[in-house]
């Protein structure tokens, strides 16, 4: 643990223990991502009947029903599955801003939620992304894996621009099991969040979005005339500040938030917005309180 003391220091670990207690009290069930599998088959829990068709395994035929009804009827069982949780941590350059930086905040959130997931014996994957997948750690199960995840998160570095869609397409381009996708990002994607979310919907993942912003992003403090330089792509925008322009910016930020929120609400996804000065443990508790995260 000494190796990762810069980010996940003793203070963080104490908060993690606290969250563990809170989680035990507030999360009696499972995280929402731990779904019963839709796949019918080899499980032991009866699910349903259906008519027999050629090719079905005859060992599942309900012979007692055949005797009573003179029809071949197949017994169907739910297949038990441990479904994965995918943590997507935004590692683009825009995450470097804030105090603490948004990137640190996102990593702590991922670490804390990952820890909770591992405690619940979920299979946890962590992905760093910017303009694609920058780094990832394969799915891990068991509480002992938390140190690997800490180390992975600690080593993660920021680079490039934000492209949610490209990251998801890269990651989910290979066969992945359906599960819970947790995204910790500022969602400052010039291409917008909608194409990325639409892509996730195709795979019927459950999604929980954590939008991390700095207070300066919500209430910009800029000189009267400024040349704004984009930290991700270096482009600049010359502006003459005015109250109406600031108001328009705030409106646009609010539109971004309400846009993401309404999208998530429409498809039963979770969403929280936080600011970097808010302690991350408070955010976690807020997340726990959301029924969209806990089943």
């Amino acid at each position, binding site marked *: 643990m000494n190796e990762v003391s810069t980010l996940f220091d003793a203070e963080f670990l104490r908060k993690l223990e606290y969250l563990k207690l809170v989680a035990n009290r507030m999360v009696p069930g499972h995280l929402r991502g731990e779904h019963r599998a839709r796949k019918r088959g080899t499980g032991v829990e009866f699910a349903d009947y259906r008519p027999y068709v050629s090719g079905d395994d005859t060992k599942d035929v309900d012979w007692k029903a055949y005797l009573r009804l003179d029809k071949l009827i197949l017994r169907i069982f739910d297949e038990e599955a441990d479904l994965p949780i995918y943590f997507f941590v935004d590692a683009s350059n825009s995450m470097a801003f804030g105090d603490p930086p948004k990137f640190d905040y996102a990593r702590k959130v991922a670490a804390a939620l990952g820890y909770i997931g591992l405690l619940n014996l979920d299979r946890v994957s962590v992905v760093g992304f910017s303009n694609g997948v920058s780094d990832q750690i394969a799915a891990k199960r068991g509480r002992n894996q938390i140190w690997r995840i800490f180390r992975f998160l600690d080593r993660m570095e920021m680079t490039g621009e934000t492209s949610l869609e490209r990251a998801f397409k890269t990651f989910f381009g290979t066969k992945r099991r359906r599960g819970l996708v947790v995204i910790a990002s500022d969602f400052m994607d*010039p291409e917008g969040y909608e194409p990325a979310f639409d892509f996730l919907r195709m795979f019927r993942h459950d999604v929980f979005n954590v939008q991390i912003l700095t207070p300066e*992003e919500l209430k910009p403090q800029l000189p009267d005339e400024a*040349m704004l330089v984009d*930290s991700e792509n270096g482009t600049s*925008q*010359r502006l003459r500040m005015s109250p109406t322009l600031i108001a*328009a910016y705030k409106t646009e930020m609010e539109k971004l938030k309400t846009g993401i929120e309404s999208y998530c609400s429409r498809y039963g996804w979770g969403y929280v917005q936080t600011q970097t000065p808010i302690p991350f443990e408070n955010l976690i508790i807020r997340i726990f309180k959301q029924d969209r995260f806990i089943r």
Partner: protein
Amino acid sequence: MSFLALTFFQMFLLAAATFGVVSFLYWLKPPPQRVTVPSTFIWVRVMQERKRRSDFWRWLVSLLVALAIGLAIAAAIGKPVIEALSGRARHIAVILDNSPTMLATTSSGDTRWELALAHAHDLLNEGSPSSEFMVTDTCGQLPATGFVSRRRALELLDGIEPCLEDRGKFLEGYAFSTQHEDTEVYFIGDGVLVRDIPDSVQTISVFEPSDNVAITAFALRPVPAEPTRYEGFLELSNYSTELKRVAMQIDGAGGASGQRAVTLAPGQVLGEPVDIDNFLSGPIRVLIDSPDDAFALDNVAYTYLAAPRRVETVLVTRGNAYLETLLDLDPRVALEIVAPEDYSVPEGDGDIPGLYVFDRFAPEQRPVAPVLLFRPTGRVWLPAPAGVDLRDFSLAGVTSDHPILSHVSLTDVVVERAARVDPGKHEVIAGTAAEPVLIVGENPLRWAELTFDIADSSFPLQAGFPIFLANAVTWLTSTDVVSAALGRFTVQARVASVTDGRGNEVPTRSLGDITAFNPEAPGLYSVRTADGELVVSANLLSPKVSAVNASAFAGESLDAGRVDYLTGSVGGGEPWLALILVALVLLLIEWWTYHRRMTV
């Protein structure tokens, strides 16, 4: 290009310095502060939204501005009339009195004519830009043809000049109201020579009482008893309201001169003989001077003293004792009697006599000498016969101011038979135009025709006949000096050259068989034609013109006029100019917003 305050080089330096300072201040403007932000993504969206909205408004404003510019220019091309802005469209006819009395000076130092022009300019600036104007005068310089624009009317106004001829009158033929019912007709004048103004015409008076002492007559005539001697006659008139002391200066050829001073009561007319015995042949000028005289044209008069001489006279007759005897008795006449069949045209210039007297005869061609005719035979150069002879009539009551009939009484003259002729445009000094008895003409050589044979009348038996004959000889042989009024003079010649008393060429106009020129100032003018030389003494010498205070507007104050014609609707600015200005301002606004969009 020049500048009033600075030299060109100083102005160049100032412009360069201004350019440098302004450019430096712009260069000094600090660049915007560079601020690195997580992402300009939201800002870009804001700007796109604002740009979308501002583009719409810009498009809308630009459309409206472009429409306004286009409509303003279109409206300007149409030169709209907005009465509220530029006054009512009016039809104004201005009749300017440009008779000679308008040259009288007023107390302001301006002449009546200059005051009239100022009033006319005011009138022409009345009304809206679409108002139309007619400008005319009382001397016929500018006929009333039709309504024209303000600019054209002002040009026409500048072309009118005071007329020196005493023929100013209000022309009833002006049909101002026939073109536009709302025509306002204004007469601007002094009411002296043009008085009978119709009631429908609004008058603006420029009359102001003025002092004027005038030479109203100046003539030389031979002394009856001594035909080779001449005496001068001068008439002075005081038209002022005050007693005037007048200094007279008479100058003649060879340095002869004389001075006198007389005092004239208001309205007094003084006839004065002028002693010219010591004067040599040549020009004579009379100049008068009186205090505060407002009218200069009548302060000088010219005449020409012809050299007394014997006249070679050819009497062509078949025998006429009266004529032969009386002409022979005249000391100025060197008589030669010729029968009609012996008459011939002299071959050389030196053989031309000074006078022909044709008794019941006329040659086919006009002689190159003055001619006195008694019942001539019909010739093309003489008044044409016009029917049967006149018979048995009396000349009682016939009077004339013509020199030929000076001191000649025709009261007892009875004529048994006379030719009936058409005088044409020649002057009839006895009889009527239909039944002329004595006709005179100048073309430029003088001639006189008595339409009857003196043997068919009692005229030779009258006491006036010798005087008539002496007068005729005098008038006919003094053809080298002709008195004329100022303004216009015509001579019977296709081509003539005219010089004034200083030898300067005077412009002439050829009008078919006659040549005209304008004596614009009192003086002697020398006219040369193919037939010879003529001296014209042009003078005002008109009591009617010199009476500059005999105004129909007397008693009215100067400038007040009889109407207050300035309505206040002076069409100062024309709306189309304002529209062009609006278009320019809108263009500037559009230009400014174009540049503003670069920084938002």
